[in-house]
Protein backbone atom coordinates (compact mmCIF):
# COMPACT_ATOMS: atom_id res chain seq x y z
CA UNK A 1 0.00 0.00 0.00
CA UNK A 2 1.10 3.54 -0.64
CA UNK A 3 0.27 6.92 0.90
CA UNK A 4 0.74 10.31 -0.69
CA UNK A 5 -0.08 13.27 1.53
CA UNK A 6 -1.46 16.60 0.33
CA UNK A 7 -1.78 19.70 2.44
CA UNK A 8 -4.89 21.84 2.03
CA UNK A 9 -4.59 24.69 4.47
CA UNK A 10 -5.00 23.22 7.93
CA UNK A 11 -6.18 19.88 6.57
CA UNK A 12 -4.15 16.87 5.47
CA UNK A 13 -5.38 14.51 2.77
CA UNK A 14 -3.82 11.04 2.79
CA UNK A 15 -4.30 9.52 -0.65
CA UNK A 16 -4.09 5.79 -0.02
CA UNK A 17 -3.66 3.15 -2.70
CA UNK A 18 -3.54 -0.62 -2.70
CA UNK A 19 -4.67 -3.00 0.03
CA UNK A 20 -4.86 -2.62 3.78
CA UNK A 21 -4.50 -6.20 5.04
CA UNK A 22 -2.44 -8.26 7.47
CA UNK A 23 0.73 -7.69 5.47
CA UNK A 24 0.37 -3.94 4.98
CA UNK A 25 -1.51 -2.79 8.09
CA UNK A 26 1.61 -2.07 10.18
CA UNK A 27 2.83 0.29 7.48
CA UNK A 28 -0.66 1.76 7.10
CA UNK A 29 -0.87 2.37 10.83
CA UNK A 30 2.46 4.14 10.85
CA UNK A 31 1.62 6.41 7.93
CA UNK A 32 -2.00 7.16 8.72
CA UNK A 33 -2.14 7.72 12.47
CA UNK A 34 0.89 9.89 13.21
CA UNK A 35 -0.86 13.17 12.31
CA UNK A 36 -3.90 12.31 14.37
CA UNK A 37 -1.73 12.04 17.47
CA UNK A 38 -0.93 15.71 16.83
CA UNK A 39 -4.61 16.66 16.78
CA UNK A 40 -4.68 17.35 13.02
CA UNK A 41 -7.77 17.26 10.82
CA UNK A 42 -7.20 14.50 8.30
CA UNK A 43 -9.08 13.08 5.29
CA UNK A 44 -8.38 9.56 4.02
CA UNK A 45 -8.90 9.34 0.26
CA UNK A 46 -9.95 5.69 -0.14
CA UNK A 47 -10.77 5.81 -3.86
CA UNK A 48 -7.70 3.77 -4.79
CA UNK A 49 -8.03 1.28 -1.92
CA UNK A 50 -9.25 -1.98 -3.39
CA UNK A 51 -9.29 -4.16 -0.28
CA UNK A 52 -9.70 -3.78 3.49
CA UNK A 53 -9.73 -6.77 5.86
CA UNK A 54 -10.22 -6.68 9.63
CA UNK A 55 -6.56 -5.67 9.89
CA UNK A 56 -7.49 -2.55 7.96
CA UNK A 57 -10.51 -1.92 10.15
CA UNK A 58 -8.20 -1.99 13.18
CA UNK A 59 -6.17 0.82 11.67
CA UNK A 60 -9.33 2.85 11.03
CA UNK A 61 -10.56 2.25 14.57
CA UNK A 62 -7.21 3.37 15.93
CA UNK A 63 -7.35 6.48 13.75
CA UNK A 64 -10.83 7.35 15.00
CA UNK A 65 -9.86 6.85 18.65
CA UNK A 66 -6.68 8.90 18.26
CA UNK A 67 -8.59 11.71 16.59
CA UNK A 68 -11.02 11.87 19.47
CA UNK A 69 -8.33 11.59 22.13
CA UNK A 70 -6.24 14.37 20.60
CA UNK A 71 -9.01 16.76 19.55
CA UNK A 72 -8.40 16.06 15.88
CA UNK A 73 -10.73 14.68 13.24
CA UNK A 74 -10.68 12.02 10.55
CA UNK A 75 -13.06 11.57 7.62
CA UNK A 76 -12.94 8.82 4.99
CA UNK A 77 -14.15 9.34 1.44
CA UNK A 78 -14.34 7.55 -1.89
CA UNK A 79 -14.91 4.03 -0.54
CA UNK A 80 -15.05 1.36 -3.25
CA UNK A 81 -17.91 -1.21 -3.21
CA UNK A 82 -16.09 -4.12 -1.57
CA UNK A 83 -14.59 -1.81 1.05
CA UNK A 84 -17.93 -0.13 1.62
CA UNK A 85 -19.48 -3.51 2.31
CA UNK A 86 -16.83 -4.45 4.85
CA UNK A 87 -17.51 -1.19 6.67
CA UNK A 88 -21.26 -1.83 6.60
CA UNK A 89 -21.04 -5.42 7.86
CA UNK A 90 -18.77 -4.46 10.72
CA UNK A 91 -20.81 -1.40 11.66
CA UNK A 92 -17.78 0.79 11.03
CA UNK A 93 -19.82 3.00 8.74
CA UNK A 94 -21.56 4.23 11.89
CA UNK A 95 -18.37 4.48 13.87
CA UNK A 96 -16.32 6.77 11.65
CA UNK A 97 -17.32 9.68 9.44
CA UNK A 98 -17.60 8.66 5.81
CA UNK A 99 -18.43 10.97 2.90
CA UNK A 100 -18.96 10.34 -0.80
CA UNK A 101 -16.26 12.57 -2.20
CA UNK A 102 -13.44 14.93 -1.40
CA UNK A 103 -15.56 18.08 -1.38
CA UNK A 104 -17.97 16.59 1.14
CA UNK A 105 -15.10 15.26 3.25
CA UNK A 106 -13.38 18.66 3.38
CA UNK A 107 -16.69 20.27 4.28
CA UNK A 108 -17.15 17.76 7.11
CA UNK A 109 -13.70 18.73 8.40
CA UNK A 110 -14.74 22.35 8.42
CA UNK A 111 -12.59 23.43 5.50
Amino acid at each position, binding site marked *: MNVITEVKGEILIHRISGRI*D*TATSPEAEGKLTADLRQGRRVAFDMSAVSYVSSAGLRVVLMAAKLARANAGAVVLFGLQPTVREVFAI*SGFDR*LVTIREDEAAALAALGA
Partner: protein
Amino acid sequence: MATLRLLCGRSVAEVTRTLDAIEEHLLEAGAAVQDAMQLRIVAEEIVTNIARCAWPAGERREFAVELTVDARLDGLHVRMTTVDDGVPFDPTTQPTPNVDAGLDERQIGGLGMLLVREMTDEQHYAREDGRNRFSVERLLHRATG
Protein backbone atom coordinates in the same frame (compact mmCIF):
# COMPACT_ATOMS: atom_id res chain seq x y z
CA MET B 1 -14.41 -29.00 -10.17
CA ALA B 2 -11.11 -27.24 -9.63
CA THR B 3 -9.31 -27.90 -6.34
CA LEU B 4 -6.42 -26.02 -4.80
CA ARG B 5 -4.56 -27.72 -1.94
CA LEU B 6 -1.64 -26.25 -0.11
CA LEU B 7 0.18 -26.07 3.19
CA CYS B 8 0.50 -22.72 4.88
CA GLY B 9 3.11 -21.68 7.44
CA ARG B 10 2.72 -19.04 10.13
CA SER B 11 4.67 -16.13 8.70
CA VAL B 12 3.08 -13.11 7.02
CA ALA B 13 4.88 -14.10 3.79
CA GLU B 14 3.40 -17.59 3.94
CA VAL B 15 -0.08 -16.25 4.63
CA THR B 16 0.20 -13.78 1.76
CA ARG B 17 1.40 -16.52 -0.59
CA THR B 18 -1.62 -18.64 0.38
CA LEU B 19 -4.09 -15.78 -0.07
CA ASP B 20 -2.57 -14.90 -3.46
CA ALA B 21 -3.01 -18.52 -4.57
CA ILE B 22 -6.63 -18.54 -3.39
CA GLU B 23 -7.49 -15.30 -5.16
CA GLU B 24 -5.80 -16.43 -8.36
CA HIS B 25 -7.56 -19.80 -8.26
CA LEU B 26 -10.94 -18.10 -7.90
CA LEU B 27 -10.30 -15.71 -10.78
CA GLU B 28 -9.10 -18.53 -13.03
CA ALA B 29 -12.27 -20.46 -12.18
CA GLY B 30 -14.33 -17.54 -13.45
CA ALA B 31 -15.17 -15.62 -10.31
CA ALA B 32 -15.84 -11.88 -10.65
CA VAL B 33 -13.10 -9.60 -9.31
CA GLN B 34 -15.29 -8.31 -6.45
CA ASP B 35 -16.29 -11.83 -5.41
CA ALA B 36 -12.73 -13.08 -5.45
CA MET B 37 -11.75 -10.13 -3.30
CA GLN B 38 -14.54 -10.77 -0.79
CA LEU B 39 -13.52 -14.41 -0.52
CA ARG B 40 -9.91 -13.36 -0.08
CA ILE B 41 -11.03 -11.28 2.90
CA VAL B 42 -12.80 -14.36 4.30
CA ALA B 43 -9.70 -16.48 3.73
CA GLU B 44 -7.46 -13.85 5.30
CA GLU B 45 -9.51 -13.79 8.49
CA ILE B 46 -9.52 -17.58 8.82
CA VAL B 47 -5.90 -18.21 7.82
CA THR B 48 -4.47 -15.32 9.86
CA ASN B 49 -6.33 -16.49 12.94
CA ILE B 50 -4.87 -20.00 12.67
CA ALA B 51 -1.36 -18.77 11.89
CA ARG B 52 -1.35 -16.47 14.91
CA CYS B 53 -3.36 -18.31 17.54
CA ALA B 54 -3.42 -22.06 16.96
CA TRP B 55 -0.02 -22.76 18.59
CA PRO B 56 2.30 -21.02 21.06
CA ALA B 57 4.32 -18.12 19.66
CA GLY B 58 7.54 -19.09 17.96
CA GLU B 59 6.64 -22.67 17.06
CA ARG B 60 7.07 -23.52 13.39
CA ARG B 61 3.88 -25.11 12.19
CA GLU B 62 1.92 -25.74 9.03
CA PHE B 63 -1.75 -26.23 8.33
CA ALA B 64 -3.72 -27.42 5.32
CA VAL B 65 -5.87 -25.17 3.16
CA GLU B 66 -8.17 -26.53 0.48
CA LEU B 67 -10.30 -24.56 -1.97
CA THR B 68 -12.80 -26.18 -4.31
CA VAL B 69 -14.72 -24.35 -7.00
CA ASP B 70 -17.58 -26.25 -8.64
CA ALA B 71 -19.18 -24.63 -11.66
CA ARG B 72 -22.88 -25.48 -11.77
CA LEU B 73 -25.90 -24.02 -13.55
CA ASP B 74 -26.71 -21.62 -10.73
CA GLY B 75 -23.16 -20.36 -10.34
CA LEU B 76 -19.82 -21.16 -8.78
CA HIS B 77 -20.01 -23.22 -5.60
CA VAL B 78 -16.98 -22.36 -3.52
CA ARG B 79 -15.83 -24.24 -0.44
CA MET B 80 -12.78 -23.34 1.61
CA THR B 81 -11.50 -25.72 4.28
CA THR B 82 -8.68 -25.42 6.78
CA VAL B 83 -7.30 -28.28 8.88
CA ASP B 84 -4.88 -27.60 11.73
CA ASP B 85 -3.63 -29.51 14.77
CA GLY B 86 -3.56 -26.47 17.05
CA VAL B 87 -5.57 -25.73 20.19
CA PRO B 88 -9.26 -26.63 19.94
CA PHE B 89 -11.00 -23.57 18.51
CA ASP B 90 -14.52 -23.37 17.14
CA PRO B 91 -14.96 -20.17 15.09
CA THR B 92 -18.72 -20.74 14.92
CA THR B 93 -19.19 -20.17 18.64
CA GLN B 94 -17.14 -17.01 19.01
CA PRO B 95 -19.10 -14.04 20.38
CA THR B 96 -20.13 -11.42 17.84
CA PRO B 97 -18.78 -7.96 18.48
CA ASN B 98 -21.39 -5.35 19.29
CA VAL B 99 -21.69 -3.48 16.00
CA ASP B 100 -23.83 -0.83 17.63
CA ALA B 101 -21.27 0.08 20.24
CA GLY B 102 -19.93 3.62 20.18
CA LEU B 103 -16.33 4.57 19.59
CA ASP B 104 -15.29 4.37 23.22
CA GLU B 105 -16.79 0.93 23.76
CA ARG B 106 -15.82 -0.61 20.46
CA GLN B 107 -13.24 -3.36 20.66
CA ILE B 108 -11.13 -5.08 18.03
CA GLY B 109 -11.90 -8.71 18.89
CA GLY B 110 -14.29 -10.82 16.88
CA LEU B 111 -14.32 -8.65 13.78
CA GLY B 112 -12.68 -11.26 11.60
CA MET B 113 -15.24 -13.98 12.33
CA LEU B 114 -18.07 -11.49 11.89
CA LEU B 115 -16.84 -10.81 8.36
CA VAL B 116 -16.50 -14.56 7.73
CA ARG B 117 -20.08 -15.23 8.88
CA GLU B 118 -21.58 -12.37 6.91
CA MET B 119 -19.63 -13.02 3.71
CA THR B 120 -20.30 -16.78 3.46
CA ASP B 121 -23.47 -18.87 3.17
CA GLU B 122 -22.46 -21.64 5.56
CA GLN B 123 -19.79 -22.34 8.15
CA HIS B 124 -18.99 -25.76 9.62
CA TYR B 125 -16.63 -26.77 12.37
CA ALA B 126 -15.55 -30.16 13.67
CA ARG B 127 -12.82 -31.35 16.01
CA GLU B 128 -11.56 -34.73 14.74
CA ASP B 129 -8.42 -36.74 15.54
CA GLY B 130 -6.88 -33.84 17.40
CA ARG B 131 -7.49 -31.41 14.56
CA ASN B 132 -9.69 -28.39 13.95
CA ARG B 133 -11.52 -28.68 10.68
CA PHE B 134 -13.32 -25.51 9.56
CA SER B 135 -15.05 -25.00 6.25
CA VAL B 136 -17.05 -22.19 4.72
CA GLU B 137 -19.21 -22.21 1.61
CA ARG B 138 -20.36 -19.51 -0.72
CA LEU B 139 -22.40 -19.59 -3.89
CA LEU B 140 -21.27 -17.00 -6.41
CA HIS B 141 -24.32 -16.43 -8.58
CA ARG B 142 -23.89 -16.08 -12.29
CA ALA B 143 -24.28 -12.53 -13.52
CA THR B 144 -27.52 -12.33 -15.51
CA GLY B 145 -27.84 -10.66 -18.91
